[in-house]
């Protein structure tokens, strides 16, 4: 129980844990959807504080991790063009394509720039009217509305040299894919809080009902996650399967209607391949027909790419919760954050990176090992 002292409110954490212990009578498998939640769980040793009957399975909720290799390769090909300024969020720099990454493209003369916001990329396009400026638009429902607004602005302001390589993904179809998989062990979900800040909770009751799974919207702080687990276990023990909001300070049931309206205007739902998992029907967004002029896939000829996925990488099984990161033979040996085989090791929200960072190597760590090395 030593890790508890790291909690902001150790006493409250202890009470939540006691309540979970008092409630649980048999084994349950819960999936936390969001990679940010995975990091909190591993960093604070929450999985090790829980009673043995409560197992946390790490979900596919890291946008960097699930962006398909083909899209990464398209990004790399566009970024290497001499007429292009390629703008990306910083955590894409080391994500491996078939034979290079954005960091290496820049090293070979590509004009790759890191932006904090997609609006920064639009500003770069305004400042460089004679160059093509391409923004790498990946992410879940939290990132899609800012990117949608940026394309909307590009059209409104008439900026012809801006385009976006879009590979957005949606959480509800991923939950459906996980639940319909023959190897699924998941009995409840901790839903990603900030996705719900945008989308609200309206998409979840049908899923909870159809698959008889509790879905509890959960935040990112250690106490948020313990509270989410407490509510989930209580439902499971009672045989209930409802949608519950354990993160009301940031999530309203209707979400953010203005953001949803912009999403509906700029994007349309499409089938999307998830790296390591495969194609999930209706699981993504692409630019709608009225914004096709701003679609980098149409502007640049990047079809016919042949991808090479490293055979040793088992990130697909990690993303589906079928294995823990340290159960992969390459983990920590041929695959490290410096030379990753898959995106789950390089992304700041990837499950493999969390296990590597906090030294979860398959053995029971000491408290020191569970803390980041200073």
């Amino acid at each position: 129980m030593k890790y508890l002292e790291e909690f902001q409110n150790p006493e409250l954490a202890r009470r939540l844990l006691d309540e979970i212990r008092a409630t649980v009578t048999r084994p349950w498998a819960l999936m936390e959807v969001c990679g940010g939640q995975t990091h909190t769980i591993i960093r604070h040793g929450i999985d090790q504080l829980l009673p043995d009957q409560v197992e946390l399975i790490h979900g596919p909720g890291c946008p960097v991790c699930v962006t398909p290799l083909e899209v990464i390769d398209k990004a790399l090909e566009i970024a290497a063009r001499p007429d292009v300024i390629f703008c990306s969020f910083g955590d894409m720099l080391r994500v491996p394509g078939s034979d290079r990454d954005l960091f290496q493209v820049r090293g070979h003369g590509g004009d790759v720039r890191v932006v904090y916001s997609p609006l920064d990329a639009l500003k770069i396009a305004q400042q460089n009217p004679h160059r093509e400026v391409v923004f790498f638009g990946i992410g879940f429902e939290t990132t899609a509305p800012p990117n949608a607004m940026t394309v909307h602005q590009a059209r409104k302001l008439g900026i012809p040299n801006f385009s976006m390589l879009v590979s957005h993904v949606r959480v509800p179809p991923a939950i459906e894919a996980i639940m319909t998989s023959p190897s699924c062990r998941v009995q409840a979900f901790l839903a990603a809080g900030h996705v719900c800040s945008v989308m609200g909770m309206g998409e979840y009751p049908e899923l909870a009902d159809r698959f008889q799974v509790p879905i509890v919207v959960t935040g990112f702080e250690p106490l948020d996650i313990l509270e989410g687990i407490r509510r989930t276990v209580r439902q499971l023990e009672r045989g209930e399967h409802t949608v519950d909001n354990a993160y009301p300070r940031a999530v309203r049931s209707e979400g953010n209607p203005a953001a949803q309206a912009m999403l509906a205007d700029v994007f349309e739902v499409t089938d999307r391949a998830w790296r390591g998992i495969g194609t999930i029907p209706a699981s993504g967004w692409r630019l709608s027909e009225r914004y096709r002029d701003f679609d980098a896939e149409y502007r640049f000829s990047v079809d016919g790419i042949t991808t090479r996925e490293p055979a040793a990488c088992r990130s697909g099984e990690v993303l589906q919760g079928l294995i823990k990161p340290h159960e992969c033979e390459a983990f920590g040996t041929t695959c490290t954050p410096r030379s990753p085989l898959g995106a789950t090791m390089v992304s700041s929200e990837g499950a493999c990176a969390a296990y590597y960072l906090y030294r979860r190597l398959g053995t029971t760590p000491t408290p020191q090992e569970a803390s980041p090395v200073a």
Partner: protein
Amino acid sequence: MCLAVPGKVLDIEERDGTRMATVDFGGVVKEVCLEYVPDLKVGEYAIVHVGFALQRLDEESARHTLALFEELGLLQEEFGDPWEAAAAPEGGDGAGGTPPAVRNDGSREVSR
């Protein structure tokens, strides 16, 4: 990049027909678009993701979350120098030391 970070609105202005704010994230100050939370006021907190306010948040929750994210190194990940992190031996993965500190390298917003 999926995590949104709470920030405090310092001032608000219209720019190119868009409602924009200056927002303080525990010392790092950035420009933020308010189009999705248009009624946000100076002094209030919001959850901000990639330069867009997505939902209003109460001050106490915002302060707690900011403190946690700082402790986890997530503020450095969000606002630090990504090239430095990508080039670092073992890429800030814990084996090479703490993540690079947030720095004001001239290409960023003013750090306070």
